[in-house]
Protein backbone atom coordinates (compact mmCIF):
# COMPACT_ATOMS: atom_id res chain seq x y z
CA UNK A 1 0.00 0.00 0.00
CA UNK A 2 2.93 2.33 0.45
CA UNK A 3 3.32 2.99 -3.25
CA UNK A 4 -0.32 4.01 -3.42
CA UNK A 5 0.04 6.25 -0.40
CA UNK A 6 3.06 8.00 -1.79
CA UNK A 7 1.38 8.33 -5.17
CA UNK A 8 -1.74 9.96 -3.79
CA UNK A 9 -0.66 11.80 -0.66
CA UNK A 10 2.15 14.09 0.40
CA UNK A 11 4.70 13.14 3.06
CA UNK A 12 3.37 12.61 6.57
CA UNK A 13 4.30 15.21 9.14
CA UNK A 14 2.42 13.94 12.18
CA UNK A 15 0.84 10.89 13.77
CA UNK A 16 -2.52 12.29 12.77
CA UNK A 17 -1.40 12.33 9.16
CA UNK A 18 -0.77 8.62 9.24
CA UNK A 19 -4.16 7.99 10.88
CA UNK A 20 -5.66 10.14 8.17
CA UNK A 21 -3.92 8.21 5.44
CA UNK A 22 -5.30 4.93 6.72
CA UNK A 23 -8.87 6.19 6.38
CA UNK A 24 -8.08 7.81 3.05
CA UNK A 25 -6.62 4.63 1.64
CA UNK A 26 -9.52 2.59 2.99
CA UNK A 27 -12.00 4.76 1.12
CA UNK A 28 -9.75 4.69 -1.95
CA UNK A 29 -9.68 0.90 -2.05
CA UNK A 30 -13.38 0.65 -1.32
CA UNK A 31 -14.12 3.10 -4.14
CA UNK A 32 -11.79 1.25 -6.47
CA UNK A 33 -13.59 -1.99 -5.67
CA UNK A 34 -17.03 -0.54 -6.37
CA UNK A 35 -15.86 1.25 -9.47
CA UNK A 36 -14.36 -1.92 -10.89
CA UNK A 37 -17.52 -3.80 -9.96
CA UNK A 38 -19.68 -1.32 -11.84
CA UNK A 39 -17.32 -1.03 -14.79
CA UNK A 40 -16.83 -4.79 -15.12
CA UNK A 41 -20.55 -5.48 -14.82
CA UNK A 42 -21.39 -2.84 -17.41
CA UNK A 43 -18.65 -4.08 -19.73
CA UNK A 44 -19.68 -7.69 -19.34
CA UNK A 45 -23.35 -6.91 -20.01
CA UNK A 46 -22.53 -4.79 -23.05
CA UNK A 47 -20.49 -7.61 -24.52
CA UNK A 48 -22.60 -10.56 -23.42
CA UNK A 49 -25.97 -9.05 -24.32
CA UNK A 50 -24.93 -7.12 -27.42
CA UNK A 51 -27.72 -6.91 -29.97
CA UNK A 52 -27.16 -9.69 -32.46
CA UNK A 53 -30.46 -9.43 -34.28
CA UNK A 54 -33.27 -6.93 -34.33
CA UNK A 55 -35.95 -9.00 -32.61
CA UNK A 56 -33.84 -10.64 -29.91
CA UNK A 57 -36.00 -11.53 -26.91
CA UNK A 58 -35.11 -9.84 -23.64
CA UNK A 59 -35.75 -10.71 -20.02
CA UNK A 60 -39.11 -9.67 -18.65
CA UNK A 61 -37.94 -9.34 -15.05
CA UNK A 62 -38.64 -5.78 -13.99
CA UNK A 63 -38.13 -5.70 -10.28
CA UNK A 64 -36.89 -7.55 -7.26
CA UNK A 65 -37.41 -6.29 -3.76
CA UNK A 66 -34.61 -8.50 -2.50
CA UNK A 67 -32.13 -6.94 -4.92
CA UNK A 68 -33.31 -3.41 -4.16
CA UNK A 69 -32.87 -4.02 -0.44
CA UNK A 70 -29.45 -5.54 -1.01
CA UNK A 71 -28.10 -2.60 -2.89
CA UNK A 72 -29.71 -0.16 -0.52
CA UNK A 73 -28.68 -1.69 2.78
CA UNK A 74 -25.14 -2.76 1.96
CA UNK A 75 -24.05 0.71 0.74
CA UNK A 76 -25.90 2.22 3.69
CA UNK A 77 -23.99 0.06 6.13
CA UNK A 78 -20.70 0.91 4.43
CA UNK A 79 -21.23 4.67 4.41
CA UNK A 80 -22.37 4.62 8.01
CA UNK A 81 -19.15 2.80 8.86
CA UNK A 82 -17.13 5.48 7.09
CA UNK A 83 -19.14 8.18 8.82
CA UNK A 84 -18.39 6.93 12.33
CA UNK A 85 -14.75 6.21 11.60
CA UNK A 86 -14.34 9.65 10.12
CA UNK A 87 -16.27 11.41 12.87
CA UNK A 88 -14.19 9.68 15.51
CA UNK A 89 -11.00 10.82 13.82
CA UNK A 90 -12.31 14.34 13.42
CA UNK A 91 -13.37 14.67 17.04
CA UNK A 92 -10.02 13.35 18.16
CA UNK A 93 -8.25 15.95 16.08
CA UNK A 94 -10.48 18.87 16.92
CA UNK A 95 -9.40 19.64 20.47
CA UNK A 96 -5.88 20.77 21.21
CA UNK A 97 -4.28 19.37 24.36
CA UNK A 98 -4.03 21.83 27.22
CA UNK A 99 -0.25 22.08 27.13
CA UNK A 100 -0.03 22.97 23.46
CA UNK A 101 2.28 25.81 22.57
CA UNK A 102 0.18 28.71 21.30
CA UNK A 103 1.11 30.79 18.29
CA UNK A 104 -1.05 33.67 17.16
CA UNK A 105 -1.57 33.88 13.42
CA UNK A 106 -2.78 36.90 11.54
CA UNK A 107 -3.63 36.43 7.91
CA UNK A 108 -3.89 39.33 5.55
CA UNK A 109 -3.58 39.93 1.85
CA UNK A 110 -1.21 38.24 1.16
CA UNK A 111 0.93 37.09 4.02
CA UNK A 112 0.92 35.09 7.24
CA UNK A 113 2.12 36.88 10.39
CA UNK A 114 3.00 34.83 13.46
CA UNK A 115 3.48 35.90 17.04
CA UNK A 116 4.91 33.70 19.78
CA UNK A 117 3.98 34.05 23.43
CA UNK A 118 7.39 35.56 24.18
CA UNK A 119 6.70 38.34 21.69
CA UNK A 120 8.81 37.03 18.82
CA UNK A 121 7.14 37.85 15.54
CA UNK A 122 7.75 36.46 12.10
CA UNK A 123 6.21 36.62 8.66
CA UNK A 124 5.52 33.69 6.35
CA UNK A 125 7.89 31.57 8.34
CA UNK A 126 7.37 29.83 11.61
CA UNK A 127 9.57 27.57 13.68
CA UNK A 128 8.12 24.91 15.95
CA UNK A 129 9.66 22.19 18.08
CA UNK A 130 9.32 18.56 17.04
CA UNK A 131 7.17 16.22 19.12
CA UNK A 132 5.27 18.95 20.96
CA UNK A 133 1.70 19.93 20.24
CA UNK A 134 1.41 23.39 18.80
CA UNK A 135 -1.79 25.35 18.46
CA UNK A 136 -2.32 28.16 15.98
CA UNK A 137 -4.93 30.70 17.02
CA UNK A 138 -5.85 32.48 13.84
CA UNK A 139 -7.66 35.55 12.69
CA UNK A 140 -7.81 37.57 9.50
CA UNK A 141 -7.44 41.28 8.93
CA UNK A 142 -9.39 41.40 5.71
CA UNK A 143 -11.07 38.59 3.80
CA UNK A 144 -11.32 34.89 4.54
CA UNK A 145 -8.09 32.93 4.17
CA UNK A 146 -7.43 29.30 4.91
CA UNK A 147 -4.46 27.81 6.76
CA UNK A 148 -3.54 24.63 4.92
CA UNK A 149 -0.65 22.33 5.80
CA UNK A 150 -0.80 19.35 3.44
CA UNK A 151 1.78 17.31 5.30
CA UNK A 152 -0.35 17.53 8.47
CA UNK A 153 -3.59 16.86 6.49
CA UNK A 154 -5.11 19.89 8.18
CA UNK A 155 -6.84 22.99 7.05
CA UNK A 156 -8.85 25.70 8.77
CA UNK A 157 -10.43 28.84 7.42
CA UNK A 158 -9.21 32.09 8.95
CA UNK A 159 -11.99 34.61 9.44
CA UNK A 160 -12.09 38.31 10.16
CA UNK A 161 -13.29 39.29 13.64
CA UNK A 162 -13.16 35.77 14.96
CA UNK A 163 -10.61 33.25 16.19
CA UNK A 164 -10.32 29.81 14.73
CA UNK A 165 -7.83 27.19 15.80
CA UNK A 166 -5.74 24.46 14.31
CA UNK A 167 -3.29 22.24 16.12
CA UNK A 168 -0.95 19.35 15.45
CA UNK A 169 2.02 17.54 16.89
CA UNK A 170 4.79 17.40 14.28
CA UNK A 171 6.80 14.18 14.27
CA UNK A 172 9.47 14.88 11.68
CA UNK A 173 11.91 17.76 11.48
CA UNK A 174 12.28 19.77 8.33
CA UNK A 175 10.24 22.18 6.25
CA UNK A 176 6.47 21.88 5.78
CA UNK A 177 4.64 23.99 3.24
CA UNK A 178 1.85 26.27 4.39
CA UNK A 179 -0.65 27.35 1.75
CA UNK A 180 -3.67 29.61 1.62
CA UNK A 181 -6.59 27.49 0.49
CA UNK A 182 -9.41 30.04 0.45
CA UNK A 183 -9.39 32.25 -2.60
CA UNK A 184 -8.39 35.74 -1.50
CA UNK A 185 -7.54 37.70 -4.61
CA UNK A 186 -4.67 38.45 -6.92
CA UNK A 187 -1.79 36.92 -5.01
CA UNK A 188 -3.78 34.13 -3.39
CA UNK A 189 -1.44 31.58 -4.90
CA UNK A 190 1.63 33.38 -3.56
CA UNK A 191 0.37 33.39 0.01
CA UNK A 192 2.72 30.62 1.02
CA UNK A 193 4.60 30.04 4.21
CA UNK A 194 7.18 27.72 5.60
CA UNK A 195 6.75 25.77 8.78
CA UNK A 196 10.15 24.67 10.09
CA UNK A 197 10.04 21.81 12.53
CA UNK A 198 13.27 21.91 14.57
CA UNK A 199 14.62 19.71 17.28
CA UNK A 200 14.12 21.19 20.71
CA UNK A 201 17.54 22.74 21.17
CA UNK A 202 17.60 24.38 17.75
CA UNK A 203 14.11 25.70 18.32
CA UNK A 204 14.95 27.25 21.68
CA UNK A 205 18.04 28.85 20.24
CA UNK A 206 16.07 30.20 17.31
CA UNK A 207 13.37 31.58 19.57
CA UNK A 208 15.95 33.50 21.57
CA UNK A 209 18.37 34.60 18.88
CA UNK A 210 16.76 34.24 15.49
CA UNK A 211 18.10 32.31 12.58
CA UNK A 212 21.71 31.28 12.60
CA UNK A 213 21.93 31.97 8.90
CA UNK A 214 20.36 35.40 9.09
CA UNK A 215 22.87 36.49 11.67
CA UNK A 216 25.84 35.71 9.46
CA UNK A 217 24.46 36.17 5.95
CA UNK A 218 25.69 39.26 4.05
CA UNK A 219 23.14 42.07 4.21
CA UNK A 220 22.31 42.14 0.53
CA UNK A 221 21.70 38.40 0.40
CA UNK A 222 19.64 38.50 3.56
CA UNK A 223 17.61 41.35 2.09
CA UNK A 224 16.86 39.32 -1.02
CA UNK A 225 15.82 36.37 1.09
CA UNK A 226 13.53 38.55 3.22
CA UNK A 227 12.09 40.19 0.14
CA UNK A 228 11.06 36.79 -1.12
CA UNK A 229 9.97 35.21 2.14
CA UNK A 230 8.24 38.03 3.97
CA UNK A 231 5.61 38.85 1.40
CA UNK A 232 7.23 41.94 -0.19
CA UNK A 233 7.36 40.22 -3.55
CA UNK A 234 3.60 39.75 -3.77
CA UNK A 235 3.11 43.49 -4.34
CA UNK A 236 6.52 44.99 -5.19
CA UNK A 237 8.33 43.75 -8.27
CA UNK A 238 12.07 44.11 -8.75
CA UNK A 239 11.97 44.28 -12.54
CA UNK A 240 10.00 47.49 -12.92
CA UNK A 241 6.53 46.02 -13.52
CA UNK A 242 3.67 47.62 -11.67
CA UNK A 243 1.97 45.63 -8.94
CA UNK A 244 -0.32 46.61 -6.11
CA UNK A 245 2.69 48.51 -4.81
CA UNK A 246 5.42 50.34 -6.72
CA UNK A 247 8.31 48.38 -8.11
CA UNK A 248 11.54 48.57 -6.11
CA UNK A 249 13.77 48.85 -9.15
CA UNK A 250 15.53 52.17 -9.53
CA UNK A 251 13.92 53.56 -6.41
CA UNK A 252 16.82 54.10 -4.07
CA UNK A 253 18.08 57.69 -4.07
CA UNK A 254 15.52 58.62 -6.73
CA UNK A 255 12.81 61.25 -6.46
CA UNK A 256 9.42 59.85 -5.48
CA UNK A 257 6.18 61.69 -6.22
CA UNK A 258 3.72 61.32 -3.39
CA UNK A 259 -0.06 61.28 -3.44
CA UNK A 260 -0.20 64.58 -1.56
CA UNK A 261 1.80 66.29 -4.31
CA UNK A 262 5.11 66.46 -2.50
CA UNK A 263 8.29 64.88 -3.72
CA UNK A 264 10.77 63.06 -1.51
CA UNK A 265 14.08 61.39 -2.08
CA UNK A 266 14.00 57.68 -1.36
CA UNK A 267 16.86 57.49 1.06
CA UNK A 268 17.42 54.88 3.75
CA UNK A 269 15.22 56.72 6.23
CA UNK A 270 12.37 56.97 3.74
CA UNK A 271 12.53 53.25 3.06
CA UNK A 272 12.72 52.46 6.74
CA UNK A 273 9.64 54.59 7.36
CA UNK A 274 7.82 53.00 4.45
CA UNK A 275 8.36 49.57 5.96
CA UNK A 276 7.42 50.46 9.52
CA UNK A 277 4.76 53.11 8.85
CA UNK A 278 3.59 52.46 5.33
CA UNK A 279 0.66 54.87 5.52
CA UNK A 280 2.86 57.86 6.33
CA UNK A 281 3.82 58.60 2.72
CA UNK A 282 1.80 57.15 -0.13
CA UNK A 283 3.33 57.02 -3.60
CA UNK A 284 1.27 58.81 -6.23
CA UNK A 285 -1.12 56.42 -8.00
CA UNK A 286 -1.19 53.68 -5.35
CA UNK A 287 -3.67 52.70 -2.67
CA UNK A 288 -2.69 52.89 1.02
CA UNK A 289 -3.00 49.12 1.52
CA UNK A 290 0.42 48.02 2.74
CA UNK A 291 0.39 46.50 6.25
CA UNK A 292 2.93 47.70 8.78
CA UNK A 293 5.97 45.57 9.55
CA UNK A 294 6.56 47.27 12.89
CA UNK A 295 7.83 44.56 15.25
CA UNK A 296 7.94 41.96 12.53
CA UNK A 297 11.50 42.69 11.43
CA UNK A 298 14.70 42.91 13.42
CA UNK A 299 16.94 45.98 13.02
CA UNK A 300 19.44 44.02 10.99
CA UNK A 301 16.67 42.77 8.74
CA UNK A 302 15.47 46.28 7.96
CA UNK A 303 19.00 47.24 7.16
CA UNK A 304 19.28 44.22 4.91
CA UNK A 305 16.12 45.18 3.00
CA UNK A 306 17.44 48.71 2.47
CA UNK A 307 20.69 47.29 1.23
CA UNK A 308 18.83 44.97 -1.13
CA UNK A 309 16.72 47.79 -2.54
CA UNK A 310 19.84 49.86 -3.05
CA UNK A 311 21.31 47.01 -5.07
CA UNK A 312 18.39 47.16 -7.49
CA UNK A 313 19.59 50.39 -9.13
Amino acid at each position, binding site marked *: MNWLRSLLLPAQGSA*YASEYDTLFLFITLLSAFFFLLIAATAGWFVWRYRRAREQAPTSMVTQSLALELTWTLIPLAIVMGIFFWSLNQY*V*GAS*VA*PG*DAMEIQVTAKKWLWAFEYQNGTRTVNEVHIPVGKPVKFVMSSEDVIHSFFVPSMRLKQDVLPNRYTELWF*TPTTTGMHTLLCAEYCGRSHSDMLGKIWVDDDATFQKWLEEGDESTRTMPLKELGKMLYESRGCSTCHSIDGTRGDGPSLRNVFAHDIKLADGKTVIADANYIRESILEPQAKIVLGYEPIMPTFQGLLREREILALIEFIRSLN
Partner: protein
Amino acid sequence: MSSDLSQTQHHGGPKLYAGVLAALLVLTAITVTASYVDFGSPAVNVVIALAIASIKASLVALYFMHLRYDKPLLSIIFVGGLFFLGLLLMLTMIDAGTRASVPYWNSKPPAGGPAAR
Protein backbone atom coordinates in the same frame (compact mmCIF):
# COMPACT_ATOMS: atom_id res chain seq x y z
CA MET B 1 -70.01 18.08 -17.26
CA SER B 2 -70.87 21.43 -15.81
CA SER B 3 -68.24 24.06 -16.28
CA ASP B 4 -69.68 26.20 -13.52
CA LEU B 5 -66.75 26.23 -11.13
CA SER B 6 -68.83 27.40 -8.19
CA GLN B 7 -70.69 24.10 -8.26
CA THR B 8 -67.58 22.09 -7.58
CA GLN B 9 -65.96 24.29 -4.97
CA HIS B 10 -67.19 25.32 -1.55
CA HIS B 11 -65.45 28.27 -0.08
CA GLY B 12 -67.62 29.54 2.72
CA GLY B 13 -69.41 32.88 2.50
CA PRO B 14 -69.49 36.43 3.80
CA LYS B 15 -70.53 35.41 7.31
CA LEU B 16 -67.60 33.08 7.70
CA TYR B 17 -65.21 35.66 6.27
CA ALA B 18 -66.47 38.32 8.66
CA GLY B 19 -65.99 35.91 11.54
CA VAL B 20 -62.43 35.21 10.46
CA LEU B 21 -61.72 38.92 10.19
CA ALA B 22 -63.07 39.45 13.71
CA ALA B 23 -60.86 36.66 15.03
CA LEU B 24 -57.83 38.17 13.29
CA LEU B 25 -58.50 41.58 14.85
CA VAL B 26 -58.94 40.07 18.31
CA LEU B 27 -55.70 38.14 17.95
CA THR B 28 -53.94 41.32 16.88
CA ALA B 29 -55.18 43.01 20.05
CA ILE B 30 -53.93 40.08 22.11
CA THR B 31 -50.49 40.11 20.57
CA VAL B 32 -50.10 43.85 21.20
CA THR B 33 -51.22 43.42 24.80
CA ALA B 34 -48.90 40.46 25.33
CA SER B 35 -45.93 42.49 24.21
CA TYR B 36 -46.36 44.72 27.28
CA VAL B 37 -46.40 41.78 29.67
CA ASP B 38 -43.15 40.59 31.15
CA PHE B 39 -43.09 36.79 31.01
CA GLY B 40 -39.73 36.55 32.69
CA SER B 41 -37.65 36.04 29.60
CA PRO B 42 -37.70 37.91 26.29
CA ALA B 43 -37.60 34.54 24.54
CA VAL B 44 -41.07 33.74 25.92
CA ASN B 45 -42.43 36.95 24.44
CA VAL B 46 -40.96 36.06 21.05
CA VAL B 47 -42.48 32.59 21.19
CA ILE B 48 -45.90 33.96 22.17
CA ALA B 49 -45.81 36.63 19.47
CA LEU B 50 -44.82 34.10 16.84
CA ALA B 51 -47.42 31.59 18.03
CA ILE B 52 -50.21 34.15 17.75
CA ALA B 53 -48.89 35.25 14.36
CA SER B 54 -48.95 31.63 13.24
CA ILE B 55 -52.56 31.21 14.33
CA LYS B 56 -53.48 34.34 12.39
CA ALA B 57 -51.54 33.15 9.37
CA SER B 58 -53.29 29.78 9.53
CA LEU B 59 -56.68 31.50 9.60
CA VAL B 60 -55.78 33.53 6.53
CA ALA B 61 -54.43 30.49 4.70
CA LEU B 62 -57.30 28.17 5.63
CA TYR B 63 -60.24 30.49 4.99
CA PHE B 64 -59.21 33.53 2.98
CA MET B 65 -56.95 31.43 0.79
CA HIS B 66 -59.47 28.53 0.82
CA LEU B 67 -56.87 25.89 1.65
CA ARG B 68 -59.44 24.20 3.85
CA TYR B 69 -61.72 23.61 0.87
CA ASP B 70 -59.14 23.06 -1.86
CA LYS B 71 -57.41 19.89 -2.99
CA PRO B 72 -54.79 18.72 -0.48
CA LEU B 73 -52.03 19.18 -3.06
CA LEU B 74 -52.13 22.95 -2.52
CA SER B 75 -51.76 22.54 1.23
CA ILE B 76 -48.88 20.16 0.65
CA ILE B 77 -47.15 22.75 -1.53
CA PHE B 78 -47.66 25.44 1.11
CA VAL B 79 -46.58 23.35 4.08
CA GLY B 80 -43.70 21.91 2.06
CA GLY B 81 -42.36 25.40 1.45
CA LEU B 82 -42.59 26.20 5.15
CA PHE B 83 -40.83 22.94 5.97
CA PHE B 84 -37.79 23.80 3.87
CA LEU B 85 -37.70 27.31 5.30
CA GLY B 86 -37.75 25.75 8.76
CA LEU B 87 -34.88 23.54 7.71
CA LEU B 88 -32.78 26.53 6.69
CA LEU B 89 -33.57 28.27 9.96
CA MET B 90 -32.94 25.22 12.13
CA LEU B 91 -29.64 24.02 10.68
CA THR B 92 -28.24 27.55 10.46
CA MET B 93 -29.20 28.20 14.06
CA ILE B 94 -27.65 24.91 15.17
CA ASP B 95 -24.37 26.09 13.69
CA ALA B 96 -24.59 29.61 15.07
CA GLY B 97 -25.60 28.37 18.50
CA THR B 98 -22.90 25.76 18.94
CA ARG B 99 -20.00 27.59 17.37
CA ALA B 100 -17.13 27.66 19.79
CA SER B 101 -13.51 26.87 19.45
CA VAL B 102 -14.05 23.75 21.55
CA PRO B 103 -16.87 21.39 20.62
CA TYR B 104 -19.44 20.86 23.30
CA TRP B 105 -18.87 17.12 23.56
CA ASN B 106 -15.32 17.60 24.68
CA SER B 107 -15.20 20.87 26.52
CA LYS B 108 -12.80 19.57 29.16
CA PRO B 109 -9.79 18.11 27.39
CA PRO B 110 -7.70 15.79 29.55
CA ALA B 111 -4.78 17.91 30.69
CA GLY B 112 -1.43 16.99 29.26
CA GLY B 113 -2.59 14.23 26.94
CA PRO B 114 -1.01 14.44 23.52
CA ALA B 115 -4.27 13.70 21.74
CA ALA B 116 -7.46 14.54 23.56
CA ARG B 117 -9.81 11.82 22.58
